[in-house]
């Protein structure tokens, strides 16, 4: 025999109220990714990449060249992270902060893959392929994270992936030029577009 049937108890009002507030918060979060990506942060990252490309092109040996780009990567990630958090807090919107976290959560895994593959390719004597790899994975990160954002963000990611693919296939020897175009020019262009249209 099964258990005796019991009448379904009504949902406690306070629980419904808490659910309503969570529902409102979640809806606001879904509506705010429109402005979570920092445009001016992207511009600053692009400028630093152009400067780094100039420095890197003058380096005589691969170790120094790699050191320049690793330093640039740390600097650019710092700028981007700071800009993302600053934009979310300036907007005073919990939804925007949530969207920023969501963006960052989808952004990081491809970058981790790049961090793991970098020493492997360098030790294998394939440093010339690193610019293509970095651009391809950074573009992947922007594209996947941008799925939760405005349309221009994944478009920027696809452009970066295209430049990365070109660097890998067409001309691995011109890595710094592709880095300047991808991390510099493309980020500055899209950064300005986002900053002007989507509030900074």
């Amino acid at each position, binding site marked *: 025999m099964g258990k005796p049937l019991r009448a379904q108890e009504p949902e406690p009002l306070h629980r419904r*109220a*808490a659910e309503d*507030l969570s*529902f*409102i918060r979640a*809806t*606001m979060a879904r509506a*705010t990714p429109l402005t979570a990506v920092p445009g001016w942060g992207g511009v600053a990252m692009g400028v630093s990449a152009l400067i780094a490309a100039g420095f890197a092109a003058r380096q005589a040996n691969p170790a120094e060249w790699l050191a320049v780009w690793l330093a640039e990567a740390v600097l650019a990630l710092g700028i981007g992270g700071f800009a993302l958090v600053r934009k979310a807090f300036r907007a005073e919107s*919990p939804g925007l902060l949530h969207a920023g976290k969501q963006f960052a959560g989808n952004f990081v895994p491809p970058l981790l893959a790049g961090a793991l593959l970098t020493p492997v390719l360098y030790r294998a004597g394939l440093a010339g392929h690193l610019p293509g790899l970095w651009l391809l994975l950074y573009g992947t990160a922007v594209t996947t994270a941008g799925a939760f954002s405005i349309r221009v963000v994944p478009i920027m990611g696809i452009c970066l992936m295209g430049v990365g693919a070109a660097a890998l296939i067409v001309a691995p020897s011109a890595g710094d030029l592709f880095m300047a175009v991808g991390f510099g020019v493309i980020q500055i262009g899209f950064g300005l577009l986002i900053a002007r249209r989507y509030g900074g």
Partner: protein
Amino acid sequence: MADRGAARRIARQKPVERPPELQATSGEAAASSLELDRLIHERMRLAIVSALAVAPSLTFAELKQILGTTDGNLSVHARKLEDAGYVTVMKSFADRVPRTEYTLTAAGRNALERYVGHMEDLIRMMKGPER
């Protein structure tokens, strides 16, 4: 102008655990003492108002994507909010394609603020005095 007050209040609101012994009695008291705005108590309309509270305006397609609903459902509920004066609708053409854009009115923003306030009051009442 994006939402400020309502969003901040919701962000500060923390989940509240009500003592079990208060469930039967205080629930009825709370229900009778709170006059909920029935118009936005309905989930889809609450979602529309909440989404518009954090965006200057949203198109029909954007709202549909954010809320994950059908054209018909969104149209019906948006019309009720429009009739109540909670949202305004702007119809135009972009590249010969019809474009419907929704904006939250001051009345709609106030209604959401009141609703959030009611929910917070309800949770406080259920929680009872701090021990």
